[in-house]
């Protein structure tokens, strides 16, 4: 039992377990389907936030263009579903039956060649995973090879964001323009709009998110995670220890891109549309704030951050629309000036010490073998394994109750 406890503490698995309990058990039991679907939507943003923890928190590289990858993933999923929704039977009133309605409205008479692969689900899913990753690889390889980082990288990613948005809006006939791709109904004949389908998709989404967090946690605990931290501290030392620093950053960027793309695809499956408003600069920066609010070093925190900010957004923009932007502004400024480590940092500095007092000492497993040392820079929720569960429930559901009230 003790060994399990210390393993939980060491690997940060305790906090992942609590998160899993909350999103897989607590939410479905306490919320109606409408709210749950909303949570599902927020959790798709959490994929982006988790990716940003790896890229920004660990890799020290800030991307303001994650909307590009979220959008690409989403659009490619949407293209598949749109083609399925546009079979010649249902679209027979169009002047060209069998093509998506927005193409018909724009006097396009034939499906463009690059839409063809999206007739097949396996190809579409493969594209969801690979296209954003390859794009991320091209961008980051070119930049990091030339040692471009920091603000320059952020600006370039923003420019990419702008390019994609203008392109999507401008090429209305091929992309659906400002309205995006709408009226998505089925996957291989399975209706995604039924209650049952919504539950299944929610759990699929939650499961994928937990899997993504576990993958990232595994990466953090591997030598690669240590190297990312080391690079943030002394990049030259890592380079002159025989590592190709740029490739490690490229990896982090590609990982973040792929996670974002999965999030985008899950968004489309649950919400049923995709539009350029989720690709642009504004959503991309908002996604950064999810990670910042949760704590840029904490994977679990990123999920809480995404949930909290979005619950807040839904609640305030419904009830006090004028206040919301001020609140958001305060969030950006406050998280930078006062709480650079976000919720996870607050937990580490305020809640955990008290917990430690109550429950004698924290697990001593952390220094049983030197190799398992966790760098102190990472605010793991390692203490969460001792009675952390009731605590996390008080820490998080503030926002939840705020919305359901």
């Amino acid at each position: 039992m003790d060994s399990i406890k210390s393993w939980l503490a060491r690997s940060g698995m305790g906090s992942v377990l609590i998160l899993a309990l909350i999103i897989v058990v607590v939410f479905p039991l306490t919320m109606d389907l409408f709210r749950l679907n909303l949570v599902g939507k927020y959790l798709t943003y959490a994929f982006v936030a988790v990716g940003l923890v790896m890229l920004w928190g660990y890799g020290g590289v800030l991307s303001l263009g994650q909307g590009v990858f979220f959008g690409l993933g989403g659009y490619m999923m949407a293209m598949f579903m749109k083609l399925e929704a546009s079979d010649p039977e249902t679209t027979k009133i169009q002047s060209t039956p069998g093509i998506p309605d927005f193409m018909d409205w724009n006097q396009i008479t034939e499906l463009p060649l690059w839409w063809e692969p999206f007739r097949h689900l396996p190809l579409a899913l493969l594209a969801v995973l690979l296209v954003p990753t390859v794009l991320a690889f091209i961008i980051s390889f070119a930049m990091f090879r030339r040692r471009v980082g920091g603000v320059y990288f952020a600006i370039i990613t923003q420019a990419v964001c702008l390019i994609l948005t203008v392109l999507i809006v401008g090429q209305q006939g091929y992309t659906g323009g400002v309205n995006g791709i709408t009226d998505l109904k089925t996957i291989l004949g399975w209706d995604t709009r039924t209650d049952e389908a919504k539950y299944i998709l929610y759990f699929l989404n939650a499961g994928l998110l937990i899997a993504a967090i576990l993958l990232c946690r595994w990466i953090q605990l591997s030598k690669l995670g240590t190297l990312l931290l080391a690079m943030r501290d002394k990049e030259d030392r890592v380079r002159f220890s025989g590592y190709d620093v740029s490739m490690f950053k490229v990896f982090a960027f590609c990982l973040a891109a792929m996670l974002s793309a999965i999030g985008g695809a899950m968004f489309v499956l649950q919400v049923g549309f995709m539009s350029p408003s989720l690709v642009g600069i504004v959503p991309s920066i908002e996604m950064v704030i999810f990670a910042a609010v949760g704590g840029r070093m904490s994977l679990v925190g990123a999920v809480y951050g995404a949930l909290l900010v979005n619950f807040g957004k839904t609640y305030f923009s419904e009830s006090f629309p004028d206040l919301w932007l001020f609140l958001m502004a305060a969030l950006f400024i406050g998280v930078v000036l006062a709480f650079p480590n976000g919720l996870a940092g607050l937990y580490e500095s305020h809640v955990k010490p008290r917990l430690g007092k109550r429950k004698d000492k924290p697990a001593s497993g952390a220094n049983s073998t030197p190799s398992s040392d966790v760098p102190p820079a990472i605010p793991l929720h390692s203490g969460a394994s001792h009675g952390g569960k009731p605590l996390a429930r008080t820490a998080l559901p503030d926002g939840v109750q705020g919305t359901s009230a």
Partner: protein
Amino acid sequence: MSLTDIMNITLMQGFAGLSLFSVLLLMGLGLAIIFGQMGVINMAHGEFMTIGAYTIYMFSSLTETFLPGFASMYFPFAIAAAFCIAFAFGWFIEWALIRHLYKRPLDTLLATWGLSLAMQQTFRSTFGAREVSPTLPDWLLGSWAPAEGLDIPINGLFVLALTALVTGGVLLALYRSRWGLRVRATVANRPMANATGINTSRTDRLTFAIGCGIAGIAGAAFTTIGSTGPTSGSLYIVDAFLVVTFGGAGSLLGTVASAFGIAQTQSIAEFFMTGSMAKVLTLMMIVTILMLRPQGLFASKIRR
């Protein structure tokens, strides 16, 4: 189509490019000072332009109500006021926010983004969500026709002249004034500048405020071309950053050259394709070139 027609079209097209150039340069100048010289990313730069634009709008409404006879003269005063208000607010923001973040450029970016959201909401609450336009004095309207079939819009000429004036002023200030010397010394070696008795934190504040003031002038100039809404500024911000980065941060001449290059590329491309595709093409070229040459067009050589 006769030869003169073609000539006229070329000239007018060239002038359209020149107009875009002056717009880009005006946007970029303030940033070139703040980002290029201080290395601070101010995502709220666009909102400082909006401050300038709303100042003009306020002046125009006030003159209309209280001093109708003054209507043809208010504009220069309004521009001066736009500079002053943006300058003062910039001074305040540097003191309240920016100075705490000098060592954390990425965090500055997030914090100033938050600032821009707050400013946008303030504009919306004060002036309404609708776009507004000031009543322009008569002498800014119409066009100048030096030859048959050749129409050069006067507001374009005005913006061009204003841009030339501001650019000249900034160059002069940076390379001939005490302030410029202090800024350049601080950029080159902060601790050393401090040691020689330069108050670097005061220099920073002044520099930031001047950059914001220039953004105010830019916003004022834009009211002659288009209308102003609460989120107008945010539309320009990425372009403005690209102009500065593409030119090579730290080089004012680079900013001028890059604004010119970008504007001409875009206006020539617009001749052959839709506006949005021309924009995509231009942005893609900038990004590609920046990937191959990240230091921008004009980078100062330094020993690393």
